[in-house]
């Protein structure tokens, strides 16, 4: 008997046919989506939307060696963060911030990052609430393929800080190859292709998910209130995937800056060189994903907060070094710890430059984005929650001024997250809880 089996994912057999009829959709000329000034515009004539990214590195910086001496513009970068020089004009530095514990136990290497991402410091490490990117996501209401993309550079899927609700942190992807396949594998529609053919297979997949989503109300009626939130979050995830498929069925708006990056071989691990390689690949993949309109929110974590980054031949990992390396009395600091922190800063520059290298009209991808760089401790050696180093890069499409050093005086670090929410147009009078609740953004950086 002739084998009539066809694999449902074999797009080639199905492409171009929907019940036998071909659908070919033409696209307009790309240049018509640049205005007179060459600024990038979306197909509907609106400016390209802002993007948000978070970038986490564990174990902070060496205190008193990274804070610029002057505030506002024109500050001089101290030697400890001199590697930020190439991005200085598109960067803001925030010093003097802290995360308040309000009498709760300091969950070392967690409470600080948690406070900045969620506005809440919980009593136990098992609790974690919605992170503020979810608030920005609701504000953006983005028609994107992926609600967000999350990556970890140390091979640990649990090392991130983003959470959709109060039911656990989002797992992060650890493999650049997997992320590449996810974005550019099946379902990717090049916005600059001249023809567009909706895939009938994707239509079916979408309708299947849509049918499953219809079970939501029936199930929600019968579960306890604790479980309702978890079930609701599952159905929201299901709807996200349904919307991803819907996105793949829509003719994409042309985006001249979109191109598919190449991928090098991956070598996942915790050696600094491995983390750098993984991070560099993720940086390229994420920057191109934003330029191709695949997402507007991303999260990068260099490694978990108990950073396991390692130097060649060094028996102790980064986290262990912060507690074990003696302070060099002549230098006044822990030399290896300082060196590792500086390497982390170098990685941040690579991400920001990857975004700044993508030209969109007269601006760059970075210009319409903002990357929020945060850490877990002001001084990791002492698990200090004071003087947390925070950076933002990019101006969110002109909504943020850049090149500014903001020297706070013990303010809640949540002010940065609140400021970014304001930059994205979130209407809210306050964010955070207890002493981490803030009502005032840093107006000096808001445009």
């Amino acid at each position, binding site marked *: 008997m002739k084998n*009539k089996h066809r*694999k*449902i*994912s074999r797009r080639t057999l199905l492409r171009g046919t929907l*019940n036998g009829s071909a659908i070919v959709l033409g696209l307009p000329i790309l240049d018509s989506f640049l205005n007179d000034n060459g600024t990038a515009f979306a197909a509907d004539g609106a400016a390209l939307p802002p993007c948000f990214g978070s970038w986490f590195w564990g174990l902070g910086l060496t205190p008193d060696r990274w804070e610029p001496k002057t505030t506002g513009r024109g500050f001089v970068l101290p030697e400890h963060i001199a590697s930020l020089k190439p991005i200085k004009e598109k960067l803001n530095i925030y010093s003097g911030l802290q995360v308040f514990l309000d009498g709760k*136990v300091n969950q*070392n290497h967690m409470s600080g990052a948690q406070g900045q991402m969620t506005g809440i410091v919980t009593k136990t490490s*098992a609790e974690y609430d919605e992170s503020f990117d979810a608030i920005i996501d609701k504000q953006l209401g983005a028609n994107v393929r*992926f*609600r*967000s993309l999350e990556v970890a550079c*140390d091979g640990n*899927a*649990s090392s991130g800080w983003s959470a*959709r609700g109060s*039911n*656990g942190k*989002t*797992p992060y*992807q650890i493999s650049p190859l997997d992320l590449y396949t*996810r974005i550019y594998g099946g379902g990717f529609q090049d916005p600059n292709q001249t023809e567009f053919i909706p895939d009938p297979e994707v239509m*079916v*997949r979408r*309708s*299947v*998910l849509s*049918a*499953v989503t*219809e*079970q939501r109300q029936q*199930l929600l009626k*019968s*579960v*306890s*209130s*604790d*479980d309702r939130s*978890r*079930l609701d*979050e*599952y*159905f*929201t*995830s*299901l709807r996200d995937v349904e919307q991803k498929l819907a996105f793949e069925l829509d003719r994409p708006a042309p985006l001249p800056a979109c191109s598919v990056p190449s991928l090098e071989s991956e070598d996942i691990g*915790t050696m600094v060189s491995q983390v750098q390689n993984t991070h560099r690949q993720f940086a390229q993949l994420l920057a191109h994903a934003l330029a191709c309109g695949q997402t507007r929110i991303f999260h990068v974590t260099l490694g978990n907060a108990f950073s*396991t980054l*390692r130097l060649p*031949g*060094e*028996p*102790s*990992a980064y986290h*262990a*070094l912060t*507690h*074990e390396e*003696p302070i060099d009395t002549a230098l006044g600091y822990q030399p290896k710890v300082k060196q590792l922190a500086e390497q982390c800063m170098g990685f941040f520059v690579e991400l920001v430059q990857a975004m700044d290298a993508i030209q969109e009209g007269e601006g760059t991808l970075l210009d319409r984005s903002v990357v929020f760089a945060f850490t877990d401790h002001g001084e990791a050696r*002492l*698990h200090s929650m004071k003087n947390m180093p925070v950076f933002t890069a990019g101006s969110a499409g002109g909504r943020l001024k850049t090149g500014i050093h903001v020297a706070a005086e013990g303010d809640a670090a949540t002010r940065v997250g609140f400021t970014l929410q304001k930059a994205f147009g979130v209407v809210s009078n306050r964010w955070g809880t207890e002493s981490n609740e803030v009502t005032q953004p840093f107006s000096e950086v808001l445009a």
Partner: protein
Amino acid sequence: MKQRISRIKQLRATGLLAMMLICLSPNILNAAENNERNGSKKNNKEVTFVRLSSDQYRNAIHDIFGESILVRGNGSSSGVREAGLMAVGERRLTLSASEVESYELLALDIANQVLHPSRRRTLLQCTPQNEKTLDNECAAQFITTVGLHLFRRPLSKNEIDAYVEIARSATESLGDFFFGLQAALVGMMVSPDFLFRIERSVPNPESPSTRQLDTWSRASRLSFFLWDTTPSPALLEAARSGELMFDEGLNQQIERMMTSPRIEDGLRAFFADMLAFDRFDTLDIDSNLYPRFTKNVEDEAREQTLLTIADQLLNKKADYRDLFDSRQTFLTPALAALYGVPIPIRQELGGKVPWVPYEYPENHARVGLLSQVTFLSLFSHPGASSPTLRGKAVREHLLCQIIPPPPPDVDFSLVRDTDNPNFKTVRDRLTEHRNNPTCSGCHTLMDPIGLALEVFDASGVYRTTENGADIDTSGQWAGQDYTDVNELAALLKDDPTLTSCLVHRAYNYGTARASTPTEVQWLNTTHTQLRNEGVRWRELMQRISRNPDFYTVPESSMAEEQ
């Protein structure tokens, strides 16, 4: 052992579904419809749900569709440990968009394999009259049969109709009946009814103010607890008949499951959880510093531990305590090289890894689980052993004790100051560290255990010196002196906390929640009895499975009344 493995494979290779191809009796559907009409309002309320682990997902697919179905990838990629167990954490978790995305792709791939022309004949009892259009009856039959196994309960008429509708729509769009069935199958496999164990409850007739798991949820709890997989056809049949709701029928099923070789799957899953095998996912022992610790060694070490436990607790029917001073294990050539012992090599070129039973001589430093590469490497730093991590692991994973986090202003600089001639060994450095009053409280609990294991480096290789100084393995356990790991193992073995921890953990693993005060009382009594009679795995599993409270829904988990 080979015979046993092949029996498991045989069962799986055929797939429960292919084996069974049951024609559902009208009773099943009637029960489901009754639930829909009456029960869902009051008597059969979904109370809570637990996410399937990646292994449970894989086991269920293999059992339902046959082991030849490849499960390429994981849907969920992370978990949280709660009350000492990842299994309990699954009750807290949901699925993120990226995880649902993965599960949808996995489902597509699996559905494609299941309905491949070479397989579909064994799974479908009907042949569509026209492969280009929907055969309503055939589709309903397929959905009804597969749905029973995927959802671990019969589908209601409305549910069957809904999935037939998916099949109809897909058949019309793609012009192929089997594509339609694939679509329906994908729909069932991304449904919360499959990806979560939804536990429904009914009022307890003996105590109407409390609720107990209904017959189908009992089957699931029992099956995932004892076999780490979806209920077998026999168990589903017992659920359908209602016998699981009564002691006699329940005990018969427990007895049947206990004597099956599949009990090893459940044992392996439990110990992989209790012993924190999730740490293997991020284990990164530095191969430059420890060249013998290769990826193969890592994989084989993991298997060595599970093989040893299964052999002791199931084949030899040994007491749990024996795991800590047993000298019997299994080795491969690579592991033997790392352990530094000779074994006969019987590996043929390109052949499978040969496992050779091995017994260490008396007074050898390798004694019990604590001296295996798994424990030693999982609780080390990438480039150094860690008495503190190892001691903490014994306290938390084996004794169910909680070690509080270190104080914020901690300074361990002495611990790594190997240039100081007074602090050559980690014992010297930690002793100094323990003199710090803010650290001593917890480190006194952790470090002595770990220091006895300092004769094993981060990769598990045996050594007698550190930086040229002899390693001192002596210490005190509960007021009693020991000089080395052998004596520590003997003291640990006698400590009631060790067995109490196992009893409590096993129960929590089964219920995927913390115990109620009533349950704690029962567990304490059970522990005392077992300690006198012998803490044997099958006996423990049996007692837990027979305990009525094991199927009771704690008040805090109960759904709100409508």
